[in-house]
């Protein structure tokens, strides 16, 4: 009877250990976008002689990283277009109007990955990028991905930059000239999990 009980307890413990180990070995790690330590910024040509810099202050996102099978990793980012900030209130209000972002009609700018592959020093992520109501497939080269433990929190960070043309997203062509067609977008983000 005593032997039988011991075997049962041992089996339970072994089962629990393998379950826990299996979770950490095979499941993807889920991270939440850390808006305090992340930024989505951009710059665009002004009069073709200089650059205007800006950022989006309200961004949310999540990503899951499967270290065993990177192709199963996913990335999502949602930017509130209304939160555009170029350090000039009048210009920000102008950018929110339909000649530019049309934030009342298209309140968010979104990226959702469709495929991921591991590359040296990061990931190459292809996905659907929706801005101004138009969706296009883009590929981001995410540099980083190393996880650290900071005060009991697991933190991972990525950086990427991409050049996008406003005309590809149906922005008003007559407004291209004063501000250049191409905008360079910089995303530096941290994600955390407990």
């Amino acid at each position, binding site marked *: 009877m005593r032997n039988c009980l011991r075997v049962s307890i041992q089996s339970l413990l072994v089962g629990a250990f393998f379950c826990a180990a299996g979770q950490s070995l095979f499941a993807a790690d889920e991270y939440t976008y850390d808006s305090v330590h992340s930024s989505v910024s951009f710059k665009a040509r002004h009069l073709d002689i200089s650059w205007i810099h800006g950022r989006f202050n309200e961004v949310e996102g999540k990503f899951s990283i499967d270290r065993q099978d990177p192709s199963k990793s996913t990335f999502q980012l949602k930017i509130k277009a209304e939160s555009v900030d170029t350090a000039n209130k009048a210009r920000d209000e102008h950018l929110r*109007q339909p000649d530019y972002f*049309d934030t009342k009609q298209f309140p968010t700018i979104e990226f959702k990955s469709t495929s991921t592959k591991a590359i040296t020093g990061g990931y190459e992520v292809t996905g659907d990028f929706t801005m101004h109501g138009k969706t296009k497939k883009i590929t981001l080269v995410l540099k980083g991905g190393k996880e650290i433990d900071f005060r009991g929190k697991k933190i991972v960070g990525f950086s990427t930059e991409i050049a996008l043309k406003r005309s590809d997203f149906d922005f*008003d062509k007559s407004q291209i000239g004063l501000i250049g067609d191409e905008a360079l977008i910089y995303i530096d983000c941290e994600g955390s999990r407990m």
Partner: protein
Amino acid sequence: MPDPLLYLESMGAAAIASALCVLAMAAWRRPAGTTRFNAACVLAMCLGIVAGNSVLSLGMTWPPANGLDRLMTVVIPAALAIELIAGIQRLPSAVAWFLRLGLAAATPRILLHGSVYLNGASGGWSAGEAVITLAAWSTLPGVLWVLLHWLSQRSCSGVSISLALALAIQSAGLTIMLAGYIKGGAAAIPLTATIATTAIGAGLAASRFAPAIVGVGVVNLFGVLFVGRFFGQISTGSALAILLAPLLCWATEIRQLRSRSPRLVGTLRLILVAIPLVVVLAVAKREFDRKMGPLLGISHSILNSSLSWTLSITRRA
């Protein structure tokens, strides 16, 4: 950036297309009946708007992506179609008004379709707010339409009502542009040219007035202002002042003015309507100089010119 040359081209294209259509109707051998006359005016406005918009590349996308696209591809064509039907002499006026007021009531909902106001996104309206706001804004074009149509039927100078509407549409466009929505403001240019040319052309060529011009003018004015208010950044006060300004045409219905010559009554109407429009434009210009001036370097040029003026005065002294 605003392109004045392109705007002139658009205005010219709209005016020429409308004028040619009205002149073709006038050159017709037989005198046109009321139905045919009204239909010719609707056709003239349709051609004018299409010609003007094609120069500005407006309303060329389907499905429409934003409020301005919906105004150009859904609301204005619906107004033209309704006025074409309403102009049929045998049609009971109750049916015509059912269609007109139906469009007036539906226009705000159509223009806001898919926007943050109605899709429950943050910064949008609650269900109650949406119902109240849509109800309030839906009433306005209907009231304006009824009152201006009634005035055009009872008065001797119907053309001046259409010209007052054209004046208000152009002022709406300029105010929207000054508030920073350039494309939305530019959209008013071909609409103004079309309404004015059709009204003047019909008056000169046939010495008659078509109620369809007032109907399409009211929808154009309301649509441009509504898009400017909810997608651009013009204030509710400015939008209402411009929208209601054409109602000042009613002032000439007082006994002392009513019996005067049509030309004098028409001129008085235009002057009365122009007064609030000029005030709204002056306020919009002041706001533009205050907000957008520094962005465009205007404040520096004003500052520089003020400085050089002060220096020249000092030297003279």
